[in-house]
């Protein structure tokens, strides 16, 4: 990915310049000991909230997001962002994210952590069981329908296009007809 942004070229140039300002920087060091984007990797992304499609740059250092801000070269937002977009940093640095698969057994009152393997195998088993029991080859009129009405899918309006495509491909291959996303809300 080639990025050429005037604004950010200045950063790398000015890191040299900054060295000469040690004294002034020293004064505010509680908040600004060093430009935190210095030496960070820049990755362009598109905001995950509304549908305007604003460009954001994610700055990472050692696998951690250290800063996020508007992409100044993006023609729609030209570097600006709303408060949601400006908070992207907190999606990456977020204590509440679920980081392991969870399972809640029937009749129990708690989540428990499970392995991916176990969860995926169990889901595959349940999908097959429900599908096999409810799959309809033909309707009452004898017309071929090849569907199950006992499994439903909703969501995906925040996934990537490629994932959306895979979801519809996968769900339709299973025979689902209840396939919906947020567009209908």
């Amino acid at each position, binding site marked *: 990915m080639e990025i050429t942004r005037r604004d950010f070229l200045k950063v790398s140039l000015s890191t040299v310049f900054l060295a000469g300002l040690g004294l002034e920087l020293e004064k505010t060091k509680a908040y600004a000991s060093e430009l935190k984007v210095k030496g960070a990797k820049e990755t362009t992304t598109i905001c995950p909230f*509304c549908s305007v*499609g604003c460009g954001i740059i994610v700055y990472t250092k050692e696998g951690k997001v250290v800063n996020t801000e508007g992409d100044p070269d993006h*023609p729609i937002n030209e570097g600006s962002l709303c408060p949601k977009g400006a908070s992207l940093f907190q999606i990456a640095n977020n204590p509440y994210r679920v980081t392991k698969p969870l399972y809640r057994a029937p*009749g129990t009152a708690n989540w428990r952590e499970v392995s*991916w393997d176990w969860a995926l195998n169990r889901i595959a088993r349940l999908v097959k069981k429900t599908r096999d029991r409810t799959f309809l080859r033909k309707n009452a009129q004898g017309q071929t*329908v090849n569907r199950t009405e006992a499994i439903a899918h909703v969501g995906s309006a925040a996934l990537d296009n490629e994932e959306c*495509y895979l979801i519809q491909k996968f769900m339709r291959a299973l025979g689902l007809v209840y396939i919906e996303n947020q567009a209908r809300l």
Partner: protein
Amino acid sequence: MTNQFNDLKNADVILVMGANPAENHPISMRWIMAAKEKRNAKLIVVDPRFTRTAAKADLYVPIRSGSDIAFLGGLIKYIIDNNLFFKEYLVNYTDAPFLVDPAFKLPDELDGVFSGYDENKRSYDKSTWKYQLDEKGVPKKDYTLSDPHCVFQLLKRHYSRYTLDTVAYITGAPKDKIEEAYRIIASTGKPDRTCTVCYAMGWTQHTVGTQNVRAFSIVQLLLGNIGMAGGGINALRGESNVQGATDAGILYHILPGYNPVPTAQDTNLNTYIQKYTPVTKEPKSLNWLSNRPKYIVSYLKALYGENAKKENDFCYDYLPKIESGQDYSFITMFDNMYKGKIKGFFAWGQNPACSVANSNKVRKALAKLDWLVVVNLWDNETSSFWRGPGMDPKKVKTEVFFLPCCASFEKEGSITNSGRIAQWRYKALNPPGLAMPDADIINELYFRIKKLYEKEGGAFPEPILKLTWDYGEKDASGKVKHVDTHLVAKEINGYFTEDVPVHPVDKKSYKKGQQLPSFAFMLDDGRSACGNWIYSGSYTDSINMMARRGKEDPTGLGLFLNWAWAWPVNRRILYNRASVDPKGNPYDPERPVIKWDPVNRRWIGDVPDGPQPPLAEEGGKLPFIMKPLGVGTVFGTGLADGPFPTHYEPLECPFVENPLYKKHRINPTVKIFKDVPEDRFVVCDTRYPYICTTYRVTEHWQTGVMTRHMDWLRELQPQIFVEIGRELAKEKGIKSGDKVIVSSPRGRIWAIAIVTDRFRPLKVAGQTIHQVGLPWHFGWRFPEDGSGGDSANLLTPTVGDPNTMIPETKVFTVNVEKA
């Protein structure tokens, strides 16, 4: 959106109605404010509530929620009565001159319904909703627009009732403000002035939602604003990739690229093609959808690869078929889930326990499931429904899985904005812990299910076993290790499945495996595969077009043709051939979207809606290429509830009758849900005397699963609130900051009162009407101390628009009491 966010800067008038861009699409205001500053554009906001967008408006018109068609009907009448329409455009590019079947009747003649209404079925027989055809099968026309059966005259007659007084009586809007709005909007019926509209769920979440949008589409056709820079019909969509998810056919009624989902009656591919491929007798119509056979065959080839052959109907049988006329939308889905008919459920990046209307019913429905799989970044009200308010976990038998996935910048792929621009996003870092990209979760599930069917057999395993799934390196067991989303993007774009020695389009030769240059190169004989025809051209042999970052803008209109890629074929303004006169000269030479170069015989500017020469020339084509007749349709025969938008009251309202059509209070084609107690609704009930509307605010997003977990945003909007006008608050003894209870026939929630003059009582049909408003961003699950409150959708009714089944969450009745 027909146009682009950047294009808002080109408008002379911007109507915001049923949307609130300053709060829900803040960056669009960058371009709206640019239009105001640089073009002296006028911003008009029509909204029940004075919003942050209204704060920037040149004119704010308060309106009763659910009365938009009355307002817009009055506008149509105003434009016609004052002769302010753009006649040349109307005559050449719309069906206004077309003659309609004399048997067709308007609601004026039939007590509030169009001809063909069946009260028992609550639906229309549309056999009279058609044009008169000449001997060649082409609609008869009266270019003088004076024949009493022409669409224009019918339109004029239909809206003759929508006088200023009537509009004010129904909407509650002050007459002078209505008239001022009409005057400003109608000023754009000139070739060199344009009006644009920003709408969102404020128009769609009504039992007349589709007709709200259509009403203004008619206005835009009358004023000649479709296809123009600074014009169009612009839906500001709610989620980052709701456009892409819709394009991908994650809806029960459409396959990718808006190809219809086959019904049981479409018994084979040929039947399907016959039914859904429009034919036209209009010689000047391009009738783009005549290409349907190529699109559906190529889609089947993308799904089933070499298994899909002409001999087996390209595996058409494998596609699941819906029952014709049956609804499988959210509302019906949860109705059937509540009734125990749905056993397994995937909530993939969605929180229906808060986002779907009548959430009480939804939450109870979830408890009837055998199993539930939730894929998300955060635990939420859906995944934890079994421990939510009123639930006894011991009694809930549902097995629940929570699968943690990647955030947008922890994986790679494209998303499509409201302006149809598909933009590529890169991976910045790994996800936390064991979280996985959604694509890999799908991959893992697919592989495991496939294995089970391979080993054990089962119900009709072929569609699963024969599916193509070549998305990266495979392990010893044949499983794709990790999905390479570039390979998926390439399949979506499409490729040749066989060598094509002489392609019928350009006479060049193409090799098997080469990417399709665009959908124009697709074939209906199985030699091309394409996952989604409208994305064909997005990922070519040489370049991922969606990742482009070119900033050239030679027209200065903000089209940015080298920035990423827009469907279809990188066109930025749809129907742009309507922005030029029949000779190809731009109606507004200052803002030329496209222009015909007669010397080189080609179009300059945006990617035109077809390369054919302008209408007046030999081989010239009409501008509305997706319509079989090539023109914009004022007369909407495809709708469930009538060819012209008509004012009906919301399901719940404080009035016993419709002031315009006494016999039909509500949309006569709305499906009434009443099987279960959770579906209850009331009409003109003194227990619920106030109109309530729901909305979003700048600081949160959707049900708040993302934003409630982000402290900086929660700091700004920590709790559910209800906005109440000063007069009502005084009546109820409520002060700003008080905790109040808002209740509807379906539920009750607490909220913090914001007493404000931004909601004013309106005088409607002789009564004083109070409106209140709630955001729907909150939920019991987080913050964990319950300080945020719960979803406003606990109050909203189970009812939807008859065309789309989008629930009517923008208007229902409530009571408000001090807690």
